[in-house]
């Protein structure tokens, strides 16, 4: 027999969204995760953000697993997270890391909360009596909190903690805490844990307006706030009330609001010569929201330098912000803010539109504060004993944003890579999980086997009889206001209830034994458990029930105190108890009519199809193959490499795509797990996750093959865009950046004698007619080419005419480098585009210089056009073949632009790289890794477990009208034309119930959410308390 391998465990340090995502992805594969966070709770910055662009609302829950929902929480992520394979350890800091890759010992300091969450009854009487009030940091001081407090208002369970710096040790809280959960003398605790791999997802410190010198000219009043604080001002759990955004200083409505960009970023003088990447979108979103939430009359103005709307959909968002919402954008970095005697805030700026100075008063100024990475990176470098690179950041391997250089088993994700937006945080989290998975499979670590839920037994299908078990907290009977005897009697009389047991402390060991004892003798086939914090105990209690012989789908746990307390002031014990009984009855009803469920498994064909043999496609293929997954790599051209791999020798950040592609090709061909199909296109696909069948057609021979695979990745890439503008093609002095790049590399283009070289950015891009998006790489390409020209001919003057320089993140240093090298950047606006005219065989470019406000005429020896990136034309065919969507620009439309950037709506299909949107090479590789991980999560086993709660078809009732097929948002329902029936893909189905409503006679139904159950719950809710119980 094979030796039992240890279960792979990964420490994810930092429970912001990227860390959470990495943890969930690993847990889905079956690895154990220890998810720690230095703060008292999880969620990171996003816990503070109620609104995220582009929908301007939340959607965080969409990062929960789609398949295997059984094993994780199914509720708002801002409440909390649960997954069977994830251990969450908040308020813990890593003190030391010993050992090496595959064998780490990590010392963790668990900080004392002083409130034991296992004992806390969440009644908050302690908070009521606490005499200490301090500013609530969660709301950036806009509100107050007590010394004993709940850090994040939405969290469930509440996880109270005591702020010992504020606490006066008066002991009032201890006096009122009936469960004895508070221990003022609690000590920090050191624990050591063994893990195989570590993912750092701590994020970085953010610039704050009180700490830094350069903010002092701006932060002159409480009404000058950071962008994060502004989020809290707009939040219902922050200071937003009554539809008005209020000034912190006096609570007056803020009507005129200004945003000042780049606060703390793009500042060489303050040694922060980088862009924080997300602040532009952040400000645009806030400006739009302010107008929407603040009511009529709110004016939003953003002072910016370059509006960096480089990501997918960002440009449209910007255009909408300006055109639909009327947000003012003013390109001017202001010197400071002055507080007027009336409290208003004065800003003087130079308006480039009118070319005049303007002095204007604002009610509120928001500083778009960015990242402060160095401190955090240094901390990690010291802890992990790794070196920082020349920029002072943790060094990752070439081409990787995730793998720490020279440290196998150590990965980073999220804002440690530089501030990331939600989408990138997700991609990086998945990619980091992927790298860790690769590492773990490499060392042979095992995964957790999911326990299957058995088919229901005959006993479970019998007429339902409910056993109600009520957990009582030790000695403190009645202390929480529940009269157990009354409750028990009330429920005992209820129809369908077989027995009611009050059991002491089921959450503890002896309670467990007692429960097991009682329940294993029961005649009932359903169990309803009332406990104080079901979120915390649910799993334990369900395990007890399982041991006692209950089918776990027929066991429900309810929050005994929560339901009675919800939103109500505390009535008398009797009233409360009766109300609780009343609420419980609804739960009984629902359980009574619930059928026994089981988790179906889905057979998996463990082969992957990767479409596109560019760098992204090859990366995905290699990554999957490395984990033993057979991959078919399909490329429509006669060679691998894609656009970058066949055309681009070097990038501005020192990468060599052509050399890299060559190297990858070699690896691809050598890998026995990879089959390459050249000159081949995928033309049609049927099936679902685990069992797709695709038709592959060879273009040269017209030969067709049918490939069975379990998942597919679209990595179709893109290519340099085309344009009819500026006489491209009419003169050999006019060319694209790609042509120049090639020409410079080959020597075909000689810049030796050139005096003036003009580059025009955004040709045909970022405008409604044409590419309505930023191609993200053109600025870097232009800079790389310009630097090359300067290298060859230092006397040549290179002019780059731009709209916004999109050197986001640490690419900013290349912009700086380019300026230092003497490259001249001149801004133009879309409504005043440069004009070109050939004079004596030479292009002459005319444009309006926004700085000098003068028409400039530039004779150019070379005119170079940045024509952006176009999606592959084959995308539309593929989209049809795979029944996935394209966006208006011809790129693939991911399932969710923020939370599911790598997936298609249809499970089992993924996308990576430029197929998603134009992006730099390192991001392509990261997405390719992420896509491979998404596929691997399901391809790693012969079958996957889906979920017990799933939509079903009652075939005998079904008339095949297919309305359910049409309405399903996940494409989980399909009409089988051969069998003439409706099929449900159990992996794709998310049990939203839309099919069930659409189906008029309940031929479609979600198990566990049947109309029968819901209708009886409505009854229970509406019946007067006493009437519910038959009179004896």
């Amino acid at each position, binding site marked *: 027999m094979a030796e039992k391998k240890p279960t792979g465990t990964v420490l994810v340090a930092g429970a912001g969204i990227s860390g959470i995502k990495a943890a969930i992805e690993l847990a889905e594969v079956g690895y154990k995760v220890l998810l720690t966070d230095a703060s008292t709770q999880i969620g990171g910055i996003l816990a503070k953000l109620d609104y995220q662009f582009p929908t301007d609302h939340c959607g965080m829950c969409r990062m929960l697993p789609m398949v295997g929902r059984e094993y994780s929480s199914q509720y708002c992520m801002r409440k909390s997270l649960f997954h069977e394979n994830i251990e969450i350890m908040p308020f813990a800091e890593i003190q030391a890391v010993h050992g090496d890759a595959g064998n780490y010992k990590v010392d963790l300091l668990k900080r004392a909360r002083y409130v034991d969450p296992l004992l806390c009854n969440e009644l908050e009487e302690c908070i009521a009596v606490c005499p200490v009030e301090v500013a609530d940091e969660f709301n950036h001081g806009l509100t107050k909190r007590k010394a004993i407090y709940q850090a994040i208002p939405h969290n469930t369970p509440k996880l109270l903690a005591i702020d010992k710096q504020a606490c006066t040790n008066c002991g009032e809280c201890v006096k009122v805490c009936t469960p004895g959960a508070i221990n003022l003398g609690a000590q920090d605790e050191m624990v050591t844990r063994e893990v195989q791999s570590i993912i750092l997802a701590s994020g970085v410190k953010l610039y704050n307006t009180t700490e830094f*010198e*350069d903010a*002092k*000219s701006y932060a002159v009043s409480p009404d000058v706030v950071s962008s994060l604080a502004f989020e809290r001002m707009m939040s219902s759990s922050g200071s937003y009330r009554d539809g008005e955004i209020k000034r912190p200083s006096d609570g007056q409505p803020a009507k005129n609001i200004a945003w000042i960009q780049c606060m703390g970023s793009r500042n060489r003088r303050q040694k922060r010569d980088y862009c924080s990447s997300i602040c532009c979108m952040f400000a645009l979103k806030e400006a739009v929201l302010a107008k929407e939430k603040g009511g009529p009359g709110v004016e939003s103005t953003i002072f910016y330098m370059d509006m960096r709307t480089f990501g997918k959909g960002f440009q449209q968002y910007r255009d909408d912000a300006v055109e639909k919402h009327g947000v003012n954008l003013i390109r001017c970095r202001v010197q*400071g803010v*002055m*507080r*007027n*005697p009336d409290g208003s805030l*004065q800003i003087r700026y130079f308006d480039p539109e009118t070319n005049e100075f303007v002095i204007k008063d604002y009610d509120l100024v928001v500083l778009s504060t960015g990242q402060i990475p160095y401190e955090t990176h240094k901390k990690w470098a010291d802890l992990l004993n790794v070196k920082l690179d020349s920029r002072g950041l943790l060094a990752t391997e070439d081409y990787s944003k995730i793998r720490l250089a020279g440290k196998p088993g150590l990965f980073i994700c999220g804002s440690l890579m530089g501030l990331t937006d939600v989408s990138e945080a997700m991609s990086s989290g998945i990619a980091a999980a992927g790298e860790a998975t690769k590492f773990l499979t490499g060392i042979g670590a095992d995964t957790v086997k999911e326990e299957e839920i058995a088919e229901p037994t005959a006993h479970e299908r019998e007429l339902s009889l409910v056993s109600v078990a009520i957990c009582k907290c030790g000695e403190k009977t009645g202390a929480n206001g529940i009269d157990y005897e009354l409750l028990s009697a009330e429920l005992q009389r209820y129809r369908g209830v077989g027995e009611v047991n009050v059991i002491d402390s089921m959450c503890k060991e002896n309670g467990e034994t007692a429960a097991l004892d009682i329940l294993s003798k029961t005649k009932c086939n359903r169990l309803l458990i009332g406990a104080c914090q079901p979120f915390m105990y649910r799993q334990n209690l369900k395990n007890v029930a399982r041991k006692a012989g209950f089918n776990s789908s027929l066991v429900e746990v309810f929050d005994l105190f929560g339901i009675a307390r919800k939103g109500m002031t505390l009535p008398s014990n009797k009233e409360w108890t009766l109300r609780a009984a009343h609420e419980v009855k609804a739960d009984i009803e629902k359980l009574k009519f619930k059928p026994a469920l089981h988790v179906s498994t889905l057979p998996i064909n463990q082969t992957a199809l990767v479409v596109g043999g560019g760098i992204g496609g090859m990366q995905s293929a290699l990554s999957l193959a490395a984990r033993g997954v057979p991959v078919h790599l399909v490329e429509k051209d006669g060679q691998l490499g894609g656009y970058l791999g066949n055309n681009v020798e070097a990038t501005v950040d020192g990468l060599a795509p052509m050399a890299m592609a060559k190297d990858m090709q070699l690896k691809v061909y050598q890998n026995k797990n990879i089959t390459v199909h050249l000159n081949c296109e995928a033309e049609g696909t049927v099936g679902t996750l685990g069992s797709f069948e695709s038709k592959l057609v060879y273009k040269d021979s017209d030969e067709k093959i049918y490939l069975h695979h379990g998942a597919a990745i679209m990595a179709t890439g893109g290519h340099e865009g085309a344009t009819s503008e500026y006489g491209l093609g009419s003169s050999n002095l006019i060319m694209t950046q790609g042509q120049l790049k090639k020409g410079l590399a080959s020597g075909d283009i000689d810049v030796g004698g050139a005096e003036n070289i003009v580059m025009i950015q955004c040709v045909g891009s970022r405008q409604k007619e044409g590419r309505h998006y930023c191609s993200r790489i053109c600025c870097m390409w232009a800079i790389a080419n310009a630097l090359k020209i300067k290298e060859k001919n230092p006397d040549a003057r290179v002019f780059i005419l731009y709209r916004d320089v999109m050197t986001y993140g640490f690419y900013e240093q290349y912009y700086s480098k380019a300026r230092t090298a003497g490259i001249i950047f001149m801004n133009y606006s879309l409504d005043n585009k440069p004009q070109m005219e050939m004079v004596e065989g030479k292009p002459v470019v005319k444009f309006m210089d926004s700085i000098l406000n003068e028409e400039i005429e530039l004779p150019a020896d070379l005119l170079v056009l940045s024509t952006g990136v176009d999606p592959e034309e084959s995308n539309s065919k593929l989209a049809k073949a795979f029944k996935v969507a394209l966006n208006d620009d011809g790129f693939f439309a991911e399932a969710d632009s923020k939370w599911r950037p790598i997936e298609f709506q249809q499970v089992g299909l993924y996308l990576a790289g430029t197929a998603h949107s134009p992006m730099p090479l390192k991001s392509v590789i990261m997405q390719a890794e992420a896509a491979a991980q998404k596929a691997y999560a399901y391809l790693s086993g012969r079958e996957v477990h889906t979920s017990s709660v799933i939509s079903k078809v009652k075939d005998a009732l079904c008339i095949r009208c297919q309305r359910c097929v049409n309405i399903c948002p996940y494409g989980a329902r399909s009409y089988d034309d051969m069998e003439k029936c409706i099929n449900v893909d159990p992996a794709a189905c998310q049990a939203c119930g839309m099919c069930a409503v659409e189906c008029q006679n309940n031929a479609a139904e979600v198990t566990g959410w049947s109309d029968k159950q819901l209708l009886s719950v409505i009854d229970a809710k509406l019946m007067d308390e006493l009437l519910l119980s038959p009179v004896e």
Partner: protein
Amino acid sequence: MELCLFLGCNTPAIRPDVERAIRASMPVLGIDLVDADNYVCCPAFGAFPSTDTDSWLATSGWNLSIAEQKGCDIVVQCGSCYSSLRMGREHIMHHPDKKDRVNELLEPTGRRVEGTSKVRHVSEVLYKEIGPETIAGQIKKSLKGMNGVVQYPCHTLFPSEVVGFEDSARAPKGMRQLVEALGANVNSYSRELQCCGGAGGFMKSTPEQAIEFAKSKFDAILAETQTDFIAVSCITCLMHMENVQNTLNKRVGEERYKIPVFDYNQLLALCLGFEAKQVASITNVSRDSVLSRIA
């Protein structure tokens, strides 16, 4: 402590009462002043710094060498002189080629500059060296019951790494604490950190706008404070803020702008018990309202 007093030109020539104030108070507070014999123009930014580096730095070097010979730091009251000297010294100290050139030019004069003497502003000496508490302990009279506003000399703030001594050049505290040390209540107002506008070519090139610019400051003071006086710490601020008030009054046709302006050293000297007619006698905005209340 011994410091070499660099007077510049405006102070000794036009406002010698300020010089008198400095010479009077400093020794009381433990600073011995030595005169910079044969010093020359700092040079003013509008002079050699605007023509060429050699003449600028040679002139700075000339002045710096005087202090170096005396073996002590230089103390300056005039903001422009302070900034020019510091910038000059900065160039000399950080550019060996410039230092060599300066010394080459100085050599025939028997001078040499090494950088051993630092350039200090009188307000820095008072604020950092002596300290508001010591001052508060030394004064014999006080400004108690009076409100003041302060005017920070731009030249002592920006650029902070060259001329600065405040914890934050963008939120300075020195002048406020120094005036408070004399017992006055310092009022804040919106345009506290706005430049007086008196230095350089602004007044010369576009006097209309320069006066408007100054007016906005005075209007803010009148509207937002109950001030009895303005405390400055630069001879240009002192002269300009007085002159502008008279100009403004002519414009508006009434005596609206009549806030007495004092160099801080004058207030200090007065509180240390020196005679107003010696230390605060030269002005064109009456100071009587303040002088009569110093007790």
